[in-house]
């Protein structure tokens, strides 16, 4: 039993699991984006794809055994700590993603209030 658990501590195994999971998420998002017509579902799909990308970045850049890159609890030097850049990048990307989604959903709400439509398939104002 313990050997199995130790297996999971090996970076390659752990990273593979993270990678498989996040890629599956990414393509679930892509499927949703291509298959669904409801505006909110489309935004949900876009969010899922985005989150999958963040997950890949964070998961693969961190090796098991590394600590958070913060000096506290007795740590006195920045050694064997995880790479701070992916965390900073993800923080930035999350905020940007939230901003875009908030704007998109607001537009969807307003569009729905004006026209009563909720599906991209029904958007025909711009066709001649």
């Amino acid at each position, binding site marked *: 039993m313990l050997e199995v658990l130790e297996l999971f501590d090996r970076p390659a195994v752990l990273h593979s699991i993270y990678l498989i999971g996040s890629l599956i998420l990414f393509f679930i998002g892509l499927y949703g984006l291509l298959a669904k017509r409801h505006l909110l579902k489309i935004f949900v799909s876009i969010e899922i794809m985005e989150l999958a990308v963040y997950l890949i970045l964070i998961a693969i850049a961190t090796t098991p055994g590394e600590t958070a890159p913060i000096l506290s609890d007795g740590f006195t030097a920045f050694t064997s700590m995880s790479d701070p850049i992916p965390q*900073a990048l993800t*923080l930035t990307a999350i905020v940007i993603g939230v901003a875009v989604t908030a704007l998109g959903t607001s537009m969807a709400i307003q569009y729905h209030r004006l026209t009563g439509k909720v599906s991209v398939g029904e958007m025909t104002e711009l066709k001649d």
Partner: protein
Amino acid sequence: MSRRLPLRKRFRVHTLLLIALCGWLLMLHLTLLLNHGLDAPSNGVGDLYLARNSETASANAVTTVVVSYRGFDTLGEVTVLFLAATGIGMLFAGGLGATPALRDRNNHPNEVMVTGTRLLFPALLLLGVYIVLHGHLSPGGGFQGGVIVATAFFLRMIADPKFNLDHAQLGWVESFAGSGFVLFGMLGLVFVTTASFLGNFLPHPVAAMGQLVSAGVIPLIYLLVGIKVGAEIGAIFQDMLEADHDTPVSARAAEEL
């Protein structure tokens, strides 16, 4: 399943094709990334940042990266949030034929909600401020703390229909924090010691690392970010609450979802 539909009605070809396409792409990415993409980047800039981090005297290396080394990204990120808040405010601003729907005053929130909010509000506010101020010492920072503060106000808005954040005041707060961020950046440019945009021009002795007053401009900038994020998210919440009103159409939308 009492009623048996023909097979082709239960699975549409379109859907199956899309699933096949996505599955194929997934397999392609998986084989590629599992073969080549499993190792964490070695000797990249991240390690160099860690090695140099102590010169900024900030105990939290992520904060150093976010606010100092890649502070320009953060300025951009704050700007994106600012743009989105502007856009949402523009979308939900009054007009559109009908007057902006007032929130339903008769629809009182229940007692648990109201009491719970009274209890939580100060605690949340305190937690938010703590997280913002300790951005350079512990996990968290301006973004996280700012969102917590905004959430505290959001709870107030839900629990008390008469509670409104004043948009004009929020605008001034946001404007103060945003221009403060840029001005801090420009001050870094002005001082000869740093001569770089967003340079850390205040003294930041390494000996003070781990104390509340340390790391020069980093906590100050993160405080401004916190104020700005709090004001912007608060404004977005306020806009969306004002926009929220029940119409028969939205019930239909919920059904279709």
